[in-house]
């Protein structure tokens, strides 16, 4: 062996011979789970380098990607930010549309479940400018056959009544306005008493005697006595009861969210109506369930019994309110000329 001192030759030879035999051993031994020992050793010997190489290459690649290959990153970042803004806007629009679709679906369902009642969907386009009154402006007016004192509702409950009508818009006095009122009754005891606004979010039921039994949580529904709203439309839920002289002071949380109205339904008749409240209409069903069976068994009148001028076909705004064939029912009660006075409890 040239280049190796002769005294070390035997050491090299020993090393070589021993390694050769170790290799020979490795070729023969087969471990149960790992295959031949030579393979285990080879893998064991190479895998650290492979791992190290992989790790190093990974680092290099990451370094290159994150620190050196940034020529277009700024432009790309700007583009992505712009794209992100657009997508956020789209998401917001879609969410808003989805919420609107839900609301319109609710209106449509309500309309379908009361196909006989002439009603018109309308959008809220404005609210009262000051806090002295609680009114909203609708995008429907006399052109759409809306008349003064017509009732305005949502599927959740009573909203108010039309107080001013213009060509293409109309103004609605909300139930929460202190000058507003609606004929009402307790859903369980059927005790009647008008409910009015107090210039605050809660409504007030004024004429319930101290002797009468009233419970917190009890539902209040329309009585139909104001000749504006049909019977048993939900008005609200009693939240507070205080004894007074001579009447109890009862506060009611409105069923309809009067502070967030976007679409409403205008009842296109001044005839007293008998609503056909069915379970699928949601909240109204609760009040229906409390109604004695006998009271709902009034004979329904045909559409022909309506005065011609009032027999307005159902019309709706937007996709929510499609015209639907009427199947029910204006109760055979003559229209009251001073309906507004009937609503006012005082």
């Amino acid at each position, binding site marked *: 062996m040239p280049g190796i001192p002769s005294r070390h030759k035997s050491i090299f*030879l020993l090393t070589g*011979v021993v390694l050769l*035999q170790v290799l020979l051993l490795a070729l023969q031994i087969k471990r149960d789970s790992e295959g031949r020992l030579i393979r285990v050793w080879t893998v064991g010997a190479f895998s650290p380098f492979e791992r190290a190489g992989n790790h190093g290459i990974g680092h290099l690649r990451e370094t290159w990607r994150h620190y050196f290959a940034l020529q277009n990153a700024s432009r790309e970042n700007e583009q992505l930010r712009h794209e992100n803004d657009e997508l956020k806007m789209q998401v917001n629009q879609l969410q808003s549309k989805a919420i609107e679709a839900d609301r319109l679906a609710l209106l449509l369902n309500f309309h379908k479940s009361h196909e006989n009642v002439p009603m018109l969907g309308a959008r809220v386009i404005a609210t009262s400018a000051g806090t002295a009154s609680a009114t909203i402006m609708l995008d429907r007016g006399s052109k759409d056959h809306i008349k003064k004192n017509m009732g305005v509702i949502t599927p959740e409950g009573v909203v108010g009544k039309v107080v001013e009508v213009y060509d293409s818009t109309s103004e609605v006095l909300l139930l929460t306005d202190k000058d507003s009122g609606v004929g009402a009754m307790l859903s369980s005891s059927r005790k009647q008493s008008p409910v009015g606004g107090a210039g605050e979010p809660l409504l007030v039921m004024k004429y319930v005697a101290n002797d009468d039994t009233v419970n917190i949580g009890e539902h209040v529904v329309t009585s139909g006595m104001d000749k504006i709203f049909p019977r048993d439309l939900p008005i609200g839920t009693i939240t507070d009861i205080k004894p007074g002289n001579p009447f109890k002071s009862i506060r009611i949380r409105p069923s309809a969210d009067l502070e967030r109205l976007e679409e409403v339904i205008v009842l296109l008749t001044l005839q007293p109506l008998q609503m056909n409240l069915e379970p699928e209409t949601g909240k109204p069903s609760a009040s229906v369930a409390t109604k004695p069976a006998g009271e709902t068994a009034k004979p329904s009148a045909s559409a022909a019994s309506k005065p011609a001028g009032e027999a307005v076909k159902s019309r709706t705004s937007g996709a929510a309110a499609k015209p639907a064939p009427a199947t029910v029912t204006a109760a055979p009660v003559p229209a009251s000329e001073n309906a507004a006075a009937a609503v006012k409890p005082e």
Partner: protein
Amino acid sequence: MNDAFDIRNMESHIEVHKFRGGAIVGATLLALMFQAFVPVYFAKAAMIDLPLLITIYFGLSRRNPSTGLLLGMVIGLLQDSLSGPTVPLGLYGIAKTVIGYLASSIGARLDTEHPAARFALTIIFFGLHQGIVLLTRRILLAQSSVWFTMHLAAAAVVNAIVAVFLFALLDHLRKS
């Protein structure tokens, strides 16, 4: 064998022995045959490792590490081959290669002709041989083995005693 001459020059008082033709081969084959067949009839004879003693003797006598380790390798591999399928080729080969190298290296530096020295060296080499075999079993073959038993200690002594007489016998194979 330049190595042998180098050693002889450095350690002029240590003699390098040469053997009659066929002595190493014959002794090796006889030792392997004894190791393979005698224990069949005398089980206790299995504790005597004649191939190891031959490796030690020729290593100490030839005093050439290269030939010593090669002789140890050959004897070891032959012993592996005769030990059945459970002993992989290389188990005794590695051990006897190392022993052959060490015996040759020591023989080149120390006087190993005295029976006491031979006795002591045989015990040491036997222990070393067992240690290498055990390490090989544990590390390379993943087999469990005990480090020390009284049987091994007794075997070391028996082999050392046998070595004293065997080496004296083998001395007659040297060229005068």
